[in-house]
Each structure stands twice: as structure tokens, then as C-alpha cells.
């Protein structure tokens, strides 16, 4: 896509607007159903929270400073993604790719804190088989981590796409959908942070 074509621009025709609106609304509805899925996991966690079966409770295994870092990293990744969206609006392809790369790295940092943390819990004998509480903890937080992983895969595919075909209308729609997904993961994390970690550490 040449700079000349980009400069010539073109107003969005009605069909494109319609397609974008449908795609965004449809994806939003999917996100709402994913929220219900997480709600099921939260309900299970809430019910099994005290079923420690002689094993450790939350406050005994949570590394709170680490959790705070994870949270800030995720928040920052939402911010960098937003900057990428703004760059897309301004047609600055190189900046878009740059901000995506930053978001990707931050996502990897998040996983690089969470996964070794899970691993160490497992090696010290506190895996998901230890108790109902730990089953629920690993499944809830692990499902969020799985969503993050899929988001990163999607991000990688989109980066390749944008580098190949540029900031086409379709690609901008796609990165809008990914932005919804990525921010939604941040939203879910607020509740994990509060309900699992903060309430666990405070024993409320």
C-alpha cells in the first residue's frame, strides 16, 4: 500500500461501516459470553476457597509484590495497545508495529512471572491435585493465562499481516477486535487481582 494511496484516502462507504459495526458488535457479544464463562470459574473459586484440605491457603502461597508487578505490567500493556490504536488512526504503520511489539513483550513478561510461579507451586507439592482451593485457583488464574497466550498468538499473526499488507481497512478492523480482547483480559484480571489475591491475602 503506497503512501500515495494512503494519502488519497477515501471515505468509508456504507458497506464497510456496516461490516465493521457488525464485526465489533459480534465480537463484543462473544466477550460477554466469555465473561459468563469466567463467572462460572469465579463462582467455583468462591465456593471452594476455604477447602484447603490441610494444604496451604491463599495468603500462604501468594507473593503479593509479584502480583502487583503482574498487574502493573498488564495495565501497561493495555496502555501500549491503546497507543497502537491511536497510531493506526493516524496511519503511522511503523508506530503501530512498535506499540504492538511493546504490548507483546509486556504480555510475555506477565507470563514469565506467572508460569514459573505456578511451576514452583507444583514442585513444592501444592499443585491442583492438592486441594479444592488449589484446583480452583489454578483453573481460574490458568484460564486467564491461557487467554493471554491466545491473545499473544493473535497479536503475532496480526503483526505479520500488517507488515505484509499494511494498514488496510480489514487490518484496522482486526486490530480493533484484538484491542477489545486484550482490554477485556485486563478487566478480568481486575477481578482476579481483587477476589483471589487481595481478598486471599487479607483473609476476608
Amino acid at each position: 500500500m503506497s503512501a500515495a494511496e494512503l494519502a488519497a484516502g477515501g471515505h468509508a462507504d456504507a458497506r464497510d461501516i456496516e461490516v465493521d459495526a457488525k464485526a465489533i458488535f459480534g465480537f463484543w457479544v462473544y466477550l460477554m459470553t466469555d465473561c459468563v464463562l469466567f463467572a462460572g470459574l469465579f463462582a467455583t473459586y468462591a465456593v471452594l476457597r476455604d477447602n484447603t484440605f490441610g494444604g496451604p491457603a491463599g495468603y500462604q502461597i501468594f507473593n503479593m509484590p509479584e502480583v502487583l508487578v503482574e498487574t502493573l505490567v498488564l495495565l501497561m500493556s493495555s496502555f501500549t495497545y491503546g497507543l497502537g490504536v491511536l497510531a493506526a488512526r493516524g496511519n503511522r504503520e511503523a508506530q503501530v508495529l512498535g506499540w504492538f511489539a511493546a504490548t507483546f513483550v509486556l504480555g510475555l513478561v506477565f507470563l514469565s512471572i506467572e508460569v514459573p510461579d505456578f511451576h514452583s507451586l507444583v514442585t513444592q507439592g501444592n499443585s491442583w491435585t492438592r486441594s479444592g482451593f488449589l484446583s480452583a485457583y489454578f483453573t481460574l488464574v490458568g484460564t486467564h493465562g491461557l487467554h493471554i497466550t491466545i491473545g499473544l498468538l493473535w497479536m503475532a499473526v496480526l503483526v505479520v499481516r500488517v507488515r505484509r499488507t499494511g494498514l488496510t481497512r480489514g487490518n484496522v478492523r482486526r486490530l480493533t477486535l484484538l484491542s477489545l480482547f486484550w482490554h477485556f483480559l485486563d478487566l478480568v484480571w481486575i477481578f482476579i487481582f481483587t477476589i483471589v489475591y487481595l481478598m486471599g491475602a487479607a483473609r476476608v
Partner: protein
Amino acid sequence: MKMPMFAWSVLCSMFLAMFAFPILTVTLALLFLDRAIGTHFFTAAGGGNVMMYVNLIWAWGHPEVYILVLPAFGIYSEVVATFSRKPLFGYASMVAALVAITILAFSVWVHHFFTMGAGADVNGFFGIMTMIIAVPTGVKIFNWLATMFRGRIELAAPMYWFMGFVGLFTIGGVAGVMLAMPAIDFQLHNGLFLVAHFHTMLVSGVLFGDFAGLIYWFPKVCGFRLNERLLKYSFWCWFIGFIVVLVPLYILGFMGATRRLDHYAASTGWQPLFIVSGLGSLIIAAGLGLLILQIGVSIRQRAATRDVDGDPWNGRTLEWTTTSPPPVYNFATIPVVHGRDPFWAAKQQGAAPSETRVFSDVHMPKNTPVGMFVGGLAFVVGFTLIWHIYWLTILAVLGLLITAAIRTTSTDDSEYTIPAAEVARLESARQVEFA
């Protein structure tokens, strides 16, 4: 408020499906984890809570039965109005009833396990909500009857299934309201009374409704009508057979017969009732046989029963203005709708069929095999997860990811256009055919 009732009912049903199925996904995933990797969600030992499975599965399971029945309600609304030659009575309240059922469907699930140890406050709340949800359904029954009142009834085959539904479903529904009272449910839970209740709802509600819909819309899809005589014989076998099956089951349930037993002591004296019920199932089998026979007969006779004008039932709604089957784009120009039952209104006013119309390009979706691949691969995932064939699960999941990635390369190219001139040509050919 001009949308056809079937469209409303499917909209509400899909709304329920969207929000209920994630609960099922979670529940089955947790059960799988318990079985496969040793988690303790639902185990008796290890800190699990078995009742959480019951709680979650019914939190999905109750919305599920409304997902099943709402489209059938929509079919009945279409069928009753068409074959009474009257507008559906109380359209607005019918829509409101659908919406009320949809919302309330999420608030009743404990009635599936009243006897499992909850207190009077929990049971009482869910019992009351269950009784409340019967009200909008009752509104619908009354509205269908009021639609028939002073109509010019034509007892075509689809209408037979409605007539069979309306009485049976009301009886089954009243049985449900009885079961909604926890005190009564303690006597009747997991007995044959419960079994009779939900089979009444599912067979006379969902199955009869789906039969009616299939018969009603078959000509539109395939271009010829089904054999009315055989369909009616089949209906009588189903209807009478089902009553013969059910009545003994209700009685046995009252007398305390438990479900899911293969043997009852002879001293109960229940055997004659079971035999009668069994005979009823043979009558239903005859009805099913006639239904299947009818498929072959109808196909053989299709030249004689061809649907020539697209309107075999003297219908009220817009699908009957298209050919049978319709062209690939359904409507060449988007119809402008000024009220409910627009086709009926046009027929009353004697609207001229051949107005000059301005055609524009039609954007059609391209065919794609992606859905079939996703369905097939998802089946493999589900099957292999149950039978612990995990290497194949991983392959199938990879296949799903690859399919998704490939699909995204074609989403910018997923439509084709039928030029206006081609649309005009197809439409004029159709006019000739109708003349």
C-alpha cells in the same frame, strides 16, 4: 413490533443459549479436569464439593429447556395465526411473554434439586420463581386459543400438531406447577410423575412444535408439499399413543414409583399400568413409522404436490412471497414493512404483483467449508477428551487453530456480488413462471 413471532422466539432462545452455554462449558471442563488431571472440584475427598456440580449443571440445564421450547412456541404462533386466518391475538403480550420467560429462565434452577438439602428459604425462593415463570407461558396458551376464537380454522397437517400440543402441554405444565412447590416435590422428585411431566413438555411442546414447523416450511424449502393423509395418520398415532404412555406414568408417579429402575416388585401391583404404558409406546412407534413412510411417499408424489406459487398455505408472512425454494438472495429488494402480517395485508388490499422495481447489486456470502471443519475437529476434541486419547486431542486443537488462522486470510474476500442486471433477469424469469 412487526417482527414475525418465530423470529422473536428464536432471538430470545439464542439469547438464552449465548449466556447459558458458557456455564455448561465450565462445568464440563471442571469435570474433565477432575477425571483427567486429578483436580478436586467435585470429589468427595480432597476438598471438593459434589453439590457444586449439581448446582452448576442445572444453572445451565434450566435455561436449556427454554432454549428448546421457545422456538417451538414461535412455530405455534405462526401456524395458529395462519390456519385460523386471523392475526395472532395479543402480539405485544406474546413478545413480552417471550422476554419474561427468557429473563426468568435464569432464576429457577434449584427446582431441579429441591430435595438435595437446601433450606426452606432457598427452596421457597426458587419455588416461587418457578411458579411465576408458568404465568407468561399460560398467557401464550390463552393467546393462541383467542387467536382461534372466531377464526376460519383450516385443519391442515401443521394445525393438527398444535391441537395435540395445546391440551397436553397445559396438563404437563400444571403438573410442573405442582412440582414447583418444594413440599410436593419432596414426594414426587425422581419419580415417574416428574418423568411424565418433562416428557409431556418435551414431546407435546418441543417435538410436536418442531414437527409442525417442519411440515409448515417444508414446501418453502423443497418446493413440494408432504402427504397430508399420512401425516394426519401419523399425528393420531403420536397423539393417542403419547396419552396412552403418559397417563399410567402420572398415576404411577402419584403412587410413588421411582424413576430409573428396571424392576419393580410384583407386590406393588403396578405391572398392568406399565404394560398399558408400553403399549402406548408401540402406538407411537407406528406413528414414527408412518412419518418415515411419508417421506418416501411424498418424494415419489412430488410432481403432483409441487408448490407452484410459493404460498401453499395462504400464508400471512413474507416468506410466502418468494418462490419455493427461494432464490439464493431470498428477496431481490428488501421489502418495506408497514405492519404485521404484511403479506396478508397486501393480499387483502389486492396489491399488484408486478410493480416496476429498481434492482441494485446484491451482496452474497461466499460458501465456505470452514464450519464443517470446525464442527468435525470439535467433535474429535470432545470425543478424545472423554476417552483419554490425548495425543489426538492435541492434534485436533492444533487443527482448529490452523483452521481459524486460514479463515482469517479470507475474511476480506468473503462476499460475492450479483449484479443488478442479473437480479432483474432472475426476477423476471420468476414472474413468467408465476404467470
